[in-house]
């Protein structure tokens, strides 16, 4: 197989710190090539070199595309020369149609400024058919699901007929069956001879779809693995530089404590309609118990947490510590001892106009104030306790949260929700976009909090995570509980079966 894309001894340093050193990457034609490495390994830097964000001359070494050395002057230049890049953050233009989104910037007939929608729809239909993506070109992008948006981004990237397609963590916002859908499309593309670089945090996906994998650590290539040599343990070991003993902490069976959170006949309607997002859901969480909610995106799992936190209108009974509570807004939930970690750190988590410490204490200022006066000494001490306990790594307590890594940002938010000592903790995708090392720390923290008596409800798209951590799992589909099992009784297959079978029904 001939290499389509190669880098020869690519090095890049920032003010004396080596971000990449002597990286030799070789991506063969018609392959899906995995690029692995946790945060800080140099993945992002390498991507920027390959996509022209760091123009030629900004780094040492050489890029060879289809046998010829190339020099990218800019991202647009890299695109023109055959590198397509699908960024991690999906950027869909909500108000435009699928077709306009695919050919954004190139909607005109034969490159002119005139737009013929007939021509545009025809071109889009042809492209989508070729990719085996079933989407109506006329649909507004705002009506698309997360997977459809991801596929739309792939279609946009492929519309320029690139030599190499780079996908940056395309599965982070997708649920399991949606990932399968994406993989079917990628497989089909591979059959058509498209060469892809697949960047991911999720190691099982490498085995599922990739032909080769390159593992980066500390700016260097530490492993090159071919498909028939894939061993998850080896990959993890290469990524972290040591063998991860156990990802999930061991835990004695949860003592059957008192019921802390009881949910009965919960119903959540789609705002402004009679359509139920959640109906007839009931469950109990005991003191010290971790309960997992599994299911696809849209199965109602986030809505259940939102209802318990008073974010959405709902019917049904929610009892905390024996008392039925009325939840009209999040402040009601907080008063009842409920805390929630939201999924979207950027939009629903971090306050970018405030520093790290203020991000921790916001909402809990009463604990460090006399009347309305904030006691800044007490605030600093309190925030530092949490930063130490969660080992938040930052330059200082007044650092800008925008510059923290995903894992550290998540820890800041965890400190915030834990600061007023909740009885019930709701976690929505607590390890999303977080590196392996931090994941392990967060798992340990969750187990420790449960051991201390907190009742925890956790939503995750990563089924192994739920199986490894939770005392009990509830499987959701179409807004109801379709399966339930205790620790050790479930399996990935069982969860997938429960969710997909219900969908078929």
């Amino acid at each position, binding site marked *: 197989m001939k290499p389509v894309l190669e880098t020869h001894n690519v090095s890049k340093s920032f003010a004396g710190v080596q971000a990449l050193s002597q990286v030799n990457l070789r991506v063969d034609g018609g392959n899906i090539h995995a690029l692995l490495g946790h945060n800080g390994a140099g993945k*992002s830097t390498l991507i920027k070199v390959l996509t022209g964000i760091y123009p030629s001359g900004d780094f040492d070494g050489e890029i060879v595309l289809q046998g010829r050395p190339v020099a990218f002057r800019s991202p647009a230049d890299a695109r023109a020369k055959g590198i397509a890049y699908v960024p991690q953050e999906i950027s869909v233009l909500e108000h435009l149609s699928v077709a306009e989104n695919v050919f954004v910037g190139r909607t005109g007939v034969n490159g002119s400024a005139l737009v013929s929608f007939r021509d545009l729809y025809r071109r889009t239909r042809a492209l989508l058919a070729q990719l085996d993506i079933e989407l109506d070109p006329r649909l507004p992008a705002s009506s698309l699901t997360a997977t459809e948006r991801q596929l739309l981004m792939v279609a946009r990237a492929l519309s320029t007929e690139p030599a190499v397609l780079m996908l940056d963590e395309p599965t982070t916002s997708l649920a399991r069956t949606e990932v399968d859908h994406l993989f079917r499309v990628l497989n089909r593309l591979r059959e058509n001879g498209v060469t892809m670089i697949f960047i991911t945090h999720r190691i099982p996906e490498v085995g599922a779809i990739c032909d080769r994998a390159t593992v980066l650590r500390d700016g260097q290539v530490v492993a090159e693995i071919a498909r028939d040599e894939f061993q998850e343990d080896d990959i993890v070991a290469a990524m972290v530089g040591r063998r991860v003993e156990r990802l999930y902490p061991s835990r004695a069976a949860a003592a059957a404590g008192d019921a802390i959170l009881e949910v009965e006949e919960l119903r959540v309607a789609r705002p402004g309609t009679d359509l139920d997002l959640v109906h007839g859901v009931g469950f109990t969480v005991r003191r010290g118990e971790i309960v997992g909610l599994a299911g696809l995106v849209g199965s109602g799992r986030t809505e259940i947490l939102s209802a318990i936190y008073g974010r959405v209108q709902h019917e049904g009974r929610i009892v905390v510590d024996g008392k039925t509570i009325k939840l009209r807004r*999040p402040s009601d939930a907080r008063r009842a001892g409920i805390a929630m970690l939201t999924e979207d750190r950027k939009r629903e988590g971090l306050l970018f106009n405030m520093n790290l410490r203020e991000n921790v204490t916001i909402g809990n200022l009463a604990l460090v104030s006399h009347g309305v*006066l904030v006691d800044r000494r007490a605030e600093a001490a309190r925030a530092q306790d949490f930063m130490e306990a969660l080992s938040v790594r930052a330059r200082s307590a007044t650092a800008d949260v925008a510059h923290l890594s995903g894992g550290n940002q998540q820890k800041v938010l965890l400190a915030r929700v834990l600061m007023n000592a909740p009885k019930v903790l709701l976690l929505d995708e607590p390890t999303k976009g977080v590196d392996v090392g931090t994941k392990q720390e967060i798992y340990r923290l969750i187990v420790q909090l449960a051991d201390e008596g907190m009742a925890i409800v956790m939503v995750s798209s990563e089924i192994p995570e739920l199986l490894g951590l939770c005392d009990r799992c509830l499987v959701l589909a179409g807004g109801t509980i379709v399966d339930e099992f205790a620790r050790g009784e479930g399996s990935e297959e069982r969860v997938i079966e429960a969710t997909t079978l219900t969908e078929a029904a």
Partner: protein
Amino acid sequence: MTEKTPVTLEAGVPLEQQSGRPPRRKAFSRAGVQRVFAVSEAGIVISLVALVLIFNSLQSAFLSSQNVRAMLGAMSFVAIIAVGQTLLLIAGEFDLSVGSVAGLSAVISAWLMTKGHLPVPIALLLGIGSGGAVGLINGLVVVRLGIPAFIATLGMLYAAQGFDLLLTNGYPIYPLPHSVGKIGQATPLFGIGWSFYILVVLVVVADLVLRRTTIGRNLYATGGNREIARLVGINTDLYKIVCFVLTGMLAALAGMLVMGSLASGSTSIGSGWELIVIAGVVIGGVSLFGGVGSVAAGFVGMLLLQVVQSGLVVVGVSPNWQTVSVGVIMVAAVGLDLFRRKVSARDSIRRRRARGSTLHETEEAGAM
């Protein structure tokens, strides 16, 4: 925690001292100077000082006590409103109706103390109350009905102006009881009127509230990201409405102070103020998008605007250039602020890269 990993902060420095403000003795070290520049108010204060020096070198009468008094007196009415506007901007909203409200409240109060035969203090309080009531309507329309502040308060600008004219037919209410003019034209200290001292008290109190209290913190959170503020339990609707009410009341107060100084309930009071107020606080670095700024900075911005306007007059430039200058300065100030932020962000990334230990953080930041 079972395992305690040490928090990687600056080695050996207690957290307390790692806040933005350096210890005093370090004030002239390079890092110290850099940090002074990093304080958001520094740029605007330096610009202000520079302008004062320039105007004074061109015309030494600029810093004469008479001119300084005139400038401080002239700016205080509008700057009183700027205090409310700053709080409102930090909470993520703004109010275009302040000029009209100042005029309407002055006229209402003048009407009450003349045709209504109410005692002066009560008429003044009712005037301020009317401003608060208008602010409450603004707040409810914006927060409860979800109408954007731009539209809601622009509507109020016209409505209040209309009521003003309905009440007066465009004629000033005159004469007012003797005591009104007496208060309005009094110069309790250094030959400067009450309005300036009221302004100073308001600025100090509001600035302390913002910096030191939970109310201030919650306001910043509300303007920074309303949804997150709600999630952490802050009653964002209440905060916004209170800011609207406060802004309305301060607008009314300013209107009445002008009425006092003119000793007349003129319908032209407050006309055009809304844009001056916003221009001034924006020059001071208060963000139109919410969550960023301070009352002190907004005040300095207003001061700078006044210095430029008076300075051009003193130097002998045609008054028409004043208006041009307001526009240019506002755009330039925001442009400079953006530039400064970009530079300081780049510097902080460089610093962290140089440190090396936390490389992954810069990488993530760069990827965003």
